[in-house]
């Protein structure tokens, strides 16, 4: 079942450019330069119930703007948005009942109140029954270990605790659709891991549709079956993770751990560079890393000469990291 349908969606912002300096300020006061910024430019997609979609793109690409239109905060300049059959900006409160939203950089909790108070406020707002509230709170408490900090005022929580609390806050009313805008921003490795694991569990239990924007591609690899990539307001890729890896991840990485690196002659790689001009070699602290295109060079051609020359303690061969693939796409386009 289709839960989100977006067609030819556009959002333009008008920005007044101010020139620097006092003179500039005075000049702009009378004659401000108007700039139309297309934050989202003719975007179309559909999302099915139960999907987990990673929505990625560089800073300022239009991710948050899209989400704000889907949640009914912003009114599109043109185009159509439907969330579960409803136009969000027209029926904001009806839509709000069905969705949960976490903006990683903001909190929906009440800063001065103990965390548990925020949850009771939300219980009233969403009119959650006592039984449901109790059951869900117990479930999330167990997953996130809320007991430790549930009685503390929100302003005293650590970022990781706050993010967990925010995620719980967005899920208490069991929404059909969950928007997570950078839910792991600024978190340490363990907190990130914990959040990912929990999101997976919640998705399994409630079949919640999740739309996730992030700059941490490990989030995507762990959680998403599908990614949508946006750049300068336009969707440049929409498909599954495997395809993008197969299509663009033609690089392989070989790491050698050497016993000593004194007698190594890197000259062999010069000849290989004629076959693959993007080949890179780095030698640092007895670790030799070679990145090459597997379509142009065989792994054997790399490993063979090294083994002949010097004593190797360990070899690690891996596909290119998703991060590098995405970086290349951001930089060069598809």
């Amino acid at each position, binding site marked *: 079942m289709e839960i989100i349908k977006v067609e030819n969606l556009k959002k333009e912002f008008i920005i007044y450019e101010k020139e620097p300096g006092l003179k500039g300020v005075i000049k702009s006061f009378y004659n401000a330069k108007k700039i139309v910024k297309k934050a989202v430019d003719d975007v179309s997609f559909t999302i099915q119930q139960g999907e987990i979609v990673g929505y990625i793109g560089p800073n300022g690409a239009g991710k948050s703007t899209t989400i*704000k239109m889907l949640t009914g*905060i*912003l*009114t599109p300049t043109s185009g159509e948005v439907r969330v579960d059959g409803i136009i969000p*900006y027209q029926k904001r409160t009806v839509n709000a009942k069905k969705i949960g939203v976490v*903006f990683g950089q*903001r909190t*929906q909790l009440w800063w001065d109140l103990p965390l548990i*108070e925020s949850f009771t406020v939300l219980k*009233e707002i969403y009119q959650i029954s006592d039984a449901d509230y109790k059951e869900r709170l117990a479930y999330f408490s167990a997953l996130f270990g809320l007991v430790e900090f549930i009685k503390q005022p929100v302003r005293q929580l650590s970022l990781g605790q706050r993010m967990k609390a925010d995620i719980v806050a967005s899920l208490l009313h069991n929404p059909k659709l969950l928007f997570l805008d950078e839910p792991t921003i600024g978190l340490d490795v363990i907190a990130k891991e914990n959040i990912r694991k929990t999101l997976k569990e919640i998705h399994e239990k409630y079949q919640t549709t999740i739309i996730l924007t992030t700059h941490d591609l490990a989030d995507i690899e762990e959680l998403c079956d599908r990614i949508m990539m946006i750049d300068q307001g336009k969707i440049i890729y929409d498909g599954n993770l495997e395809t993008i890896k197969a299509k663009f991840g033609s690089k392989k990485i070989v790491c050698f751990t050497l016993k000593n690196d004194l007698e190594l002659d890197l000259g062999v790689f010069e000849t290989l560079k004629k076959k693959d001009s993007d080949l890179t070699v780095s030698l640092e602290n007895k670790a030799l890393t070679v990145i090459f295109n597997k379509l142009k060079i065989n792994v054997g051609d790399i490993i063979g000469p090294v083994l002949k020359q010097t004593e190797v303690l360990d070899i690690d061969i891996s596909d290119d990291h998703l991060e590098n693939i995405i970086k290349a796409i951001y930089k060069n386009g598809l």
Partner: protein
Amino acid sequence: MRSKIKKYLPFFRTSVMNMFIYRGTIILWLLLDVFQFFMMVFLWMSVYEYNQSIQGFTLHEMLLYYLVTNLLYVFSDTEAMYIMSEEIREGRISMMLIKPISYKARLYSEVFGRVIGIFSLTLPIVTITAAVLLWAFNIPFAVTGLQVLLAVLFVPLIFMLMFEFAYFFGTISIHTTNVFGLAILMNVVIRIVSGQLIPLALYPKAILTVISHLPFKYISYPTLVMLGKLSTTDALQGLLILAIWVGVFNLFSNLIFKLSLKKIVVFGG
């Protein structure tokens, strides 16, 4: 209806609670008000040395006027404007718009909670001050039940009027991002044209004509009613006109908000 009220009750409650969390700050500015009040007492005493009455106000009446008006001025709260302007500037408004609640009703509940919180902190202080005043000056103070009833009827309407007014200016900050200067100016002007500083009767005729066309003069009506300066007919008429102002302002500010919301820009996160 009941469930609707229940939805907004938490905002009222948290707002009252906040007032008590920051009670240190509030008690500090209440003490400041008390100090200011006693300065005014001395000021009026010296003014009245040469006059028996000014525009029909005796010294005793003037002191009572000042005391009661300032107590009730708590209900002329324009905090909504600051809350809105801040939420819009910082983009926190988006966190409110993703909830299944009306932005205005929530703000209403919050400001109402705040006012009740401040009122319950102010009331004891004013009561003590009044007791001291009545005793020190030996002021006879008598009000009829009808006067109190009329005065009490004014209070919610004044609160609503000022809320709508603040809500309108808060909405403006969607377009201008910052209304701080405007807000301060507005607060000063309202203090002057509402009779919070001195009774409106003391102003020159020309200014009085302008003021009498504005709805803010009703802010001092409950005090005037209790001092017996206003006939029952005038008070009832005032109530009716004030109610109309509130109704019209409500429609107007809702319309402006609805139109402005389309223009809203929330940058970053």
